[in-house]
């Protein structure tokens, strides 16, 4: 993949800022059990092609903010090897938020797709004459 311009990186970051919460809630809701940070990071990576856009280190602050909002529960447990792990689980409130956010995302995606496709144009990186 070609080196991205700084605006593209900034754009990706801004897009991801809100969506990462949605993705993490979805991962935890689908798993249906509690998971610890590293496990969640691996699960996010497995989500698809886009996984790597999302740096694993970025999920920890998001998990923490979701925890503080009450959308996730957490507890610390010693592990057989390595450091103690913080396990996260989705709360009922988190499930409700996930349901609503999913709707918001569909609306948003539809709106953006329409805006991009309405002219029937394909945008290419071509210098204008």
């Amino acid at each position, binding site marked *: 993949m070609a080196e991205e311009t700084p605006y593209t990186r900034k754009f990706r970051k801004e897009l991801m800022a809100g969506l990462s919460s949605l993705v993490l809630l979805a991962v935890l809701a689908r798993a249906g059990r509690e998971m610890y940070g590293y496990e969640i*990071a691996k699960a996010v990576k497995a989500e698809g092609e886009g996984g*790597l856009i999302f*740096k*694993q280190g970025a999920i920890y602050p998001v998990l923490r903010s979701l925890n503080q909002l009450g959308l996730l529960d957490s507890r610390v447990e010693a592990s057989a090897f*390595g450091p103690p792990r913080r396990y996260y689980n989705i709360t009922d409130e988190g499930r409700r938020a996930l349901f609503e956010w999913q709707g918001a995302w569909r609306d948003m995606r539809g709106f953006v797709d329409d805006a991009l496709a309405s002219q029937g144009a394909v945008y290419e990186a071509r210098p204008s004459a």
Partner: protein
Amino acid sequence: MKQDRPPDTVRAYLAALQRSMKAQGCKPGLISDALADCEEHLNNEIAMNPGRSEADVLASVVETYGTPEEIAEEYKSMEAAISGPFPKSDETLPARHYGFFNVVRDPRAYGALMYMLLSLVTGVFYFTVVVTGVALSFGLAILIIGVPFALLFIGICRVLGHVEGRIIEGLLAVRMPRRLPPPTPADETIWTQIKEALIDTRTWSTMFYLALMLPLGVAYFVIAVVGIALSFGLAFGSIWSLITGRSDIQISEVPWLEHLFHTAPGLILAAIVGIFLFFVVLHIARGVGWLHGRIAELLLVRL
């Protein structure tokens, strides 16, 4: 931005993360949390890839986990997005133009006042634990149970330091670590664990802080109690005397003061002084809270 060699050990990565977070102006408490998260993740990554060397794993980590600079940015922006029970201190910095009497609406002043009252109890408790622990650790050092006891004591100090951090964040609104630092891995021998704990300056600074809390706690408690009693006593006592027309104050050595408490203008003046004093107490509490927050950041947060 300077492009240095990518870190090839967990320690180097953590050090780089700490540097970039400091460079971006993050609070020590937030940095400590980020380091704890990062250490947990990296150790898991290494544990999951037993066949590969630490340097090998670290090389791929920068791709998947992110560079220290990126992670620092993520934490910083997330912290800004989370709103706590108190206004962010960056926003309240122009509080200078608040004016003298507006302190009565500042939640931090009351939090600090609560903390000052509480600190006598916690201070006595921390001091007792530290003195008992240090004395027993040295006393038992010649016995076989001396070493495990010293380790237990160090662990207790860490937990107490963390609990104190939670109290401080709740009452003084200073960002403190929200999670315990990861302890040394259990597979290390007891001697390496002791060595790690002994060379960790945080162990010593935490113990020092816990012992220091006795004199500080006594001082805070005295300031708070005297301040509250004096201001409320003057204000409500004078008002009560004004309403009932009685004054039982006898200060025969200082006739002019006694006269003051037996005449209506004097009583009104005393009431005003009492109310004014209450605002002064709130200001002192806010100042003490700020000062104590700095002390705690310096001694309790491991960096």
